[in-house]
């Protein structure tokens, strides 16, 4: 199911959608499924399941730590697909956020098929651009999977137009120049970027990188179609350590808070 379903629903409610990220296999295989299901119950409209990768160049220390824990726990590509299946079963559109090499290694066509079979909506590919994504574009188009590429404050108008033309589902606007990780203030570069992106596409635009609380979510929800949160969710589970109950409670509270934020704008 394409993420567009969730965006339409949010639009009908006259609010932005809340998109939540956690890596598969964190804190462990079952734990990540439990956590993602809590996030859906507590108000996430769309789920991003991260595929843990050994060289997470676009991630800051928080996500790096979670990914490392997942890999040390033996998380495999097939576990990611299993996680997608469990989360998609809740009815929330579920996409995979992944570095490129694991997809290429699995086989692009084979990955697309497995993702589709698992009920996944598509892929977010932060470390490549449409220029190098030919085989994925083809495989995704053949199965109507969402293709979510990133645009950045540094994107030129030409590149922005090219990128959104290759997207399906939504466009991911990176709010800051930098890696993932919670930041204390709302992003200042995101507004102008969303404006430029809007001029180039009718697709919904999600803003991510650095958003961690309801106030920031409300601020971003005023001009974006979705608020994307990752590191802040990861942080609640890292802070809870081995106390799973406390971790899920904190995760639920944060999700509810952010869900109120996207409705406040």
């Amino acid at each position: 199911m394409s993420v567009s379903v969730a965006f339409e629903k949010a639009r009908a409610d006259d609010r932005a959608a809340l998109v939540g990220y956690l890596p598969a296999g964190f804190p462990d295989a079952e734990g990540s499924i439990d956590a993602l299901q809590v996030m859906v119950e507590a108000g996430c409209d769309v789920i991003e399941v991260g595929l843990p990768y050994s060289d997470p160049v676009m991630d800051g220390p928080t996500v790096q730590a979670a990914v490392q824990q997942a890999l040390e726990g033996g998380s495999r590509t097939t576990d990611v697909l299993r996680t997608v299946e469990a989360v998609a079963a809740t009815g929330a559109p579920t996409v995979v956020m992944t570095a490129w090499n694991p997809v290429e290694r699995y086989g692009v066509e084979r990955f697309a098929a497995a993702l589709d079979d698992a009920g996944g909506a598509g892929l977010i590919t932060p470390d490549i651009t449409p220029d190098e994504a030919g085989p994925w574009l083809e495989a995704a188009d053949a199965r109507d999977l969402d293709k979510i590429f990133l645009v950045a404050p540094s994107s030129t108008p030409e590149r922005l137009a090219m990128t959104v033309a290759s997207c399906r589902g939504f466009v991911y606007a990176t709010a800051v120049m930098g890696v993932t990780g919670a930041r204390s203030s709302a992003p200042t570069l995101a507004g102008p970027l969303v404006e430029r992106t809007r001029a180039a596409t009718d697709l919904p635009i999600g803003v991510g990188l650095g958003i961690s609380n309801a106030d920031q979510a409300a601020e971003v929800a005023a001009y974006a179609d979705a608020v994307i949160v990752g590191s802040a969710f990861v942080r609640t589970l890292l802070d809870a350590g081995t106390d799973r109950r406390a971790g899920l409670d904190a995760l639920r509270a944060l999700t509810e808070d952010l869900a109120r934020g996207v409705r406040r704008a």
Partner: protein
Amino acid sequence: MSTAHEIRPGYGPDETGHYGDFGGRFMPEALVAALDELDTAWQKAVLDPVFIADFERLLRDYAGTPSMLYDAERLSERAGARILLKREDLNHTGAHKIRNVLGQALLTKRMGKKRVIAETGAGQHGVASATAAAYLGLDCTVYMGEVDTERQALNVARMQLLGAEVVPVTSGSRTLKDAINEALRDWVASVDHTAYLFGTAAGPHPFPSLVLSFVRGIGDEARRQCLELTGALPEAVAACVGGGSNAIGLFAGFVDDPDVALYGYEPGGDGVDTDRHAATIWAGDVGVLHGARTYVLQDEDGQTLESHSISAGLDYPGVGPQHAHLARTGRASYVPVTDTEAMEAMRLLSRTEGIIPAIESAHAVAGAMNLAKERPGQTILVNLSGRGDKDMATALEWFGLGDAEATDEPTEQEQ
């Protein structure tokens, strides 16, 4: 300097940096504008006589190139072939890396950026970057895996003395690949005022081509010097391959000479039949790492494997795309050399010629000694990419040196 930024027609990249099936630019969108800007600036610079004159002057008056081509007669006697050594170890800062860094740092000045960042494995690229930054008045931050800061402590001190900030990287395998990750993370956030001085002929387009354009002097000089010295071209040339800059610089001079065989020696660690090595072309599979499609040491899920080499500068699970292409087309051969073979070659060259090579370069010497058995009487030109001072702690431990009493080490005659 040749201004050609391609290896040669037939081996050059297409417009988007692909060498056959390899290379390209697999990078976050946030960095694409910066890579385009770099590409444009470099394309212009290599056509600008002022830039070329500046680069040539720095290479000559500051770095001390052309490095000499040395007829290693005593080593040749041992080898049974004529071994010529391209003495890049005599360059300022002690390795071929200074060539690349001076080119990129000059380009940084030209682009009006005030800060440079670099990754380093052995520390040679970090030292070269810190040196160029000091000379040209740029701020410099060097990312170095924590494991490498320990085994190359001398180079950490050199960088600090030169005024650079050295950041130990504690993520992943805490070696070169993780230092590259960390440098890229810095760059995504600092790209408007910072240039990334990439240390080898790998990474996203335009880095492989750009680095080649700055290091190809190694091969161009060596070809000329060999003709002067011997009246002929060598039958084979040899270099060690980490990311691939010194090897591609050497190969560039000879790739159009079909009778010259090209040999790249990969770090074989404990042996390529173990899982402790960094012989990427020999044992890796095609994948994408650090911005390029190339050979990668990876597991069946595409996770990068931890590499191992006694030589920090070769301890990298990827390789530049130009080498992947030269291997695929069969123009160059890539062969592993173990830690033990490299350390033996380090001692052999020290004892026969009075030249202590970097352990990286010792891989090329060891490879050439093996090659000589297949090519008796022929001329083999070896790139001695760096000097061994930085490796004394490793040698001390490996050979049990440092204790003036201990003499049970084999003498030269016994070897």
